[in-house]
């Protein structure tokens, strides 16, 4: 019998945000955000456009430097490090292997003019793989995992549909077995049927690989399907946080109640 796993029992946080804030001059984009993310945990950040959720994602993924507070990440050697203190080589290591970043617009996360196989293989080469046959085999098995016909491996993603591009972007990100994936509106701009397929795929991959993820979305249905925990943002602040089903079924703050009650019935 398989040993029941309980990755949430792992008591060392993977990423820790402490009083993180970002100002643009007098404008506060993000204020005093603190939380800890554990291995295997999926956190959704929800809120309307302009609520600061995308800024927060950039702060958490070291693409923006915070004006206040700090973000720390547990490196593979087990040491929690302030992202601001990392050298260029360490940052590159995170981006190339230990982290994934799924953009809303797949064109930002893919190289549109090179083949699908090369898009996936490139991440492997960046971490030192150099055997062409093995790279191609691994790329091809990842295309299968994200339900892309391997006959399309030599085609460039600009010939792919929106849903396929998004699945290719996911394969490219996951091929190096990252421990943490950032997703910015991963299903935005896709047809609902394509969204459902993508969500189902992401849900399975996240649980099979035991990935931690931070997902920014304005779609509460996406948060419900993908995440364990949710943070609701408004005006750059986190106004409510908790278990996803708790926040969505029993919202306490006026703004969260408004968000939840604004979902159109299917």
């Amino acid at each position: 019998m398989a040993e029941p796993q309980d990755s949430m029992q792992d008591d060392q946080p993977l990423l820790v945000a402490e009083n993180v804030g970002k100002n643009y001059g007098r404008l506060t984009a993000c204020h005093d955000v603190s939380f800890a993310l554990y291995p295997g945990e999926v956190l959704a950040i929800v809120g309307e456009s302009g609520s600061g959720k995308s800024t927060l994602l950039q702060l958490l993924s070291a693409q923006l430097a915070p004006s206040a507070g700090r973000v720390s990440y547990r490196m593979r050697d087990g040491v929690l490090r302030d992202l601001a203190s990392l050298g260029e080589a360490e940052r590159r290591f995170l981006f190339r292997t230990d982290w994934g970043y799924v953009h809303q617009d797949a064109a930002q996360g893919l190289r549109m003019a090179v083949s699908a196989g090369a898009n996936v293989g490139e991440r492997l080469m960046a971490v030192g793989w150099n055997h062409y046959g093995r790279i191609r085999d691994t790329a091809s098995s990842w295309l299968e995992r994200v339900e892309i016909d391997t006959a399309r491996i030599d085609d460039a993603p600009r010939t792919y549909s929106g849903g396929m591009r998004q699945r290719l972007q996911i394969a490219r990100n996951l091929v190096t077995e990252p421990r943490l994936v950032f997703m910015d509106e991963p299903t935005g701009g896709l047809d609902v049927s394509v969204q459902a397929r993508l969500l189902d795929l992401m849900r399975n991959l996240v649980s099979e690989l035991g990935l931690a993820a931070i997902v920014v979305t304005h779609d509460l249905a996406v948060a419900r399907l993908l995440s364990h925990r949710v943070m609701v943002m408004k005006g750059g602040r986190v106004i409510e946080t908790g278990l996803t089903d708790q926040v969505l079924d029993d919202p306490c703050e006026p703004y969260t109640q408004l968000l939840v009650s604004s979902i159109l019935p299917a």
Partner: protein
Amino acid sequence: MTAMIDITSAEKTFTMHLQGGVELPVVRGVSFQVEPGECVVLSGPSGAGKSSILKMIFGNYRCDGGRIGIRHQGTVIDLATAEPRQVLSVRRSTIGYVSQFLRAVPRVATIDVVAEPLIANGFARAQAREKASALLRRLNIPERLWALPPSTFSGGEQQRVNIARGFISDLPILLLDEPTASLDAANRAVVVELIEQKKRQRVAMVAIVHDDEIRHLIADRIVDVTSFAAAA
């Protein structure tokens, strides 16, 4: 404490901010215990707060006061104050919940909807599916439907899928919200048998059932929820 569930003075009020901050008291002073192998049935009219109490025990609704002690992996966790990670851990290995309606992910096959809780607990897919098949068969869901997502099924079929999903794990606590509401007599009898089986495995259960006959068959004790009415 030997009880699996030990609730003391739990209370819940909804504040409806979109309706001018109206306060809607639901329950107050909820106190009862459930021992291993015991099935406690909550009784009371619609709106008395029975489902809310189940949701509080599952950590789905927050508690505004009191304590919800759950025996979990050899210790007692108070779900009224637990961290989200602890609640998830309790749900994975201690408390199962059969909700009134199935809330399934679109596109996922019935057999996988049922097998999922086991897979999430580390079982091999094949083994989980085998157990799911046995339960679906027992609940009279025709095999030709197993590969289809349950969203197009009838109400009774969806409920049986939901029951299979809730009963598949061997968890020490099970919460049942109207598990037999839209079932015919034959399937109601199957559910009663499944509950009997869980009792023999020393599972502590809290159930809501409106059908007097079923209640009579499964209840070891009845807790009247009207005594927890919060209306001041």
